[in-house]
């Protein structure tokens, strides 16, 4: 078994009387894609932000690559890449200028053009973020997380609001990043996405993890409990029809 890169134990977050995250524990192995699934308000983003060192932890511990997040948030931030849910960048700076800025913030010297090539935005190098499409914005946002050659990147709902083509394109990108050995922790609303991308998932509801495992194991558990789908699933979905009709080519 690969060693655990991320170890979360009994993580809690309270706002006054309200407990947003009620004791979450899980671990992520090196090189894995780990998905946190759950409805809105389940506490996915809060959990993620506590792990990233973006939000104070009420109790419990989060250890990344041997570093305690609560004690060394800056050291942790040097080793990880963070994509926030609402990704905004400075206006009036080109993509290359922004990547140069991020280089400086991390005291790194990655080649901006190489990063842009990796996310298929090389020809947009001199554009501003505001002139990019939704899918391009998300890809650029991921490029900024790769500046410091992180051990793990955190993607908070990277495909929300994207059209099917752009979503599939982003899946390819995540798969590429995984191939290079970078651990990916992401949240999503889309079960299909989790099934395609994630090695393991945790399902959260009301601040708790209610199920954890590989997608196949979780499906088998459900079937084992005697679950029958309401109707037999067609061998193709409407999304398959859509992609077949409109093609896989990106529309941005």
């Amino acid at each position: 078994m690969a060693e655990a890169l991320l170890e979360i134990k009994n993580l809690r977050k309270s706002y006054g009387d309200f407990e947003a995250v009620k004791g979450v524990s899980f671990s992520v192995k090196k090189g894995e894609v780990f998905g946190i699934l759950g409805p809105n308000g389940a506490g996915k983003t809060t959990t993620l932000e506590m792990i990233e060192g973006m939000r104070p932890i009420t109790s419990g511990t989060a250890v990344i690559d041997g570093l305690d997040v609560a004690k060394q948030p800056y050291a942790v931030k040097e080793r990880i890449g963070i994509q926030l849910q609402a990704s905004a960048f400075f206006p009036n700076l080109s993509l290359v200028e922004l990547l140069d800025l991020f280089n400086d913030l991390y005291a790194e010297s990655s080649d901006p053009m190489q990063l842009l090539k990796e996310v298929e935005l090389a020809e947009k190098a001199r554009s501003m973020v505001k002139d990019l499409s939704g899918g391009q914005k998300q890809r650029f946002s991921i490029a900024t997380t790769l500046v410091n050659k992180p051990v793990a990147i955190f993607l908070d709902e990277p495909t929300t609001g994207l059209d099917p083509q752009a979503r599939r394109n982003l899946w390819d990108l995540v798969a590429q990043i995984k191939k290079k050995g970078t651990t990916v922790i992401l949240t999503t609303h889309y079960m299909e996405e989790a099934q395609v991308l994630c090695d393991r998932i945790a399902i959260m509801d009301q601040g708790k993890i209610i199920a954890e495992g590989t997608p196949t194991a979780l499906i088998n558990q459900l079937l084992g409990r005697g679950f029958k789908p309401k109707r037999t699933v067609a061998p193709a979905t409407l999304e398959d029809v859509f992609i077949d009709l409109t093609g896989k080519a990106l529309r941005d």
Partner: protein
Amino acid sequence: MHLSTNTIIIGAVVILVLARLAWRLMHRGRPAEGKPRVRRPTKHRWLRSVTSLTVASTKMYFRNRSAVFFTLFLPLAFIGIFGLLSKSSTPAMKLDVTNHSSAELSKNVVSALKQVGAFNITETSESSAREQLSKGKIDLQVIIPADFGSINAKTHQFETSNIITHYNAANPGTGQTANLILGQILAKFNDSVTRTPQIINLQSSGVKTNNLGEIDFLLPGILGMTIMQLGIFSVAFAFVSMKTTGMLRRIQATPTHPVNFVLAQAITRLLIGILDVVMLVGLGVWIFGFHMVGNFAEFMLFGVIGTIVFLAFGFAVAGYAKDENSAAPIANLLSFPMLLLSGVFFPADGFPSWLKDVTSHFPLTYLVDALRSIANLGTPITQLTGDLVGLLVWGVVMFFVAVRLFRWE
């Protein structure tokens, strides 16, 4: 007041070159494609972060047209319009002089006044001058009393005497300026008439010129206003928008301390402030006949201190406000009273004394007073401690208010 065709042409060329430079800065993207920047790893991570953030925020500033318009172009336009207006419509200040004295000295004073290019002197009776003044036909009424220039029988020296002036309350700016020039001429007379320093009751130290005009009153005022707008508005809006759109959070997701970002924002505004001072004074002197009588370094020092003080105001607003909608009214509420009451466009002399007691403590009042004293009268900084202390107290107080109110989200 000398505006030759040559200076206009040279000035226009300079403005065009500056505009071209600004345009290139505003223009998107990097100038050259190709080789990535090679950077040596540095031990000074902090310095690298702050420098890079400063460069980024300066680029953003120059590419933001409305910011450039309000803090660089608009003040220039103000100076340009007022400068040209004050030249074409009011070529000279009109003074009516009534000389009740028959002494030789009084005649010398009158003829000295007539030699001032900016003055248009008419000798007339006191009552006719009063009438002209009340109709707004003249800017200043000057009355030389009968005992002016009389000689004390015992000491064989001139008696101390007061010259009385009345200015047009409807146009106090010009009257005040005329008064100032008059004061300087009289001071020179004091100097020449007697060597006993007790009788000199007007200061004339460091005064190189006595041709002060409307532009000399307006330019420091407009500069003060610009510095205030720069500090309060440009910081408040830029920062609040970075807060609401999540850009600030993205910076917080990197190992850079967010204070570095605040620092970079402040440094950029300081640079713009310095640019404003250089640009307005430079073009003012060059094209509009502005007089920098005092020490420019001290003038600049006050500009920089003023920028820092108003930056503290701006960060207090930016830190407190949740979004643009709450930032705008607060920023306006702070800046508007100062804009009207701090003597930017007209002197505060006409205000009732209770109001003056309040407005004289406004930070903009301190700033504009100091800038005006240095530029118009050549007052050294050692005699401006009141303004300096006033500004510093505001700066320290607002710094703590800003720290106290600050919210990152």
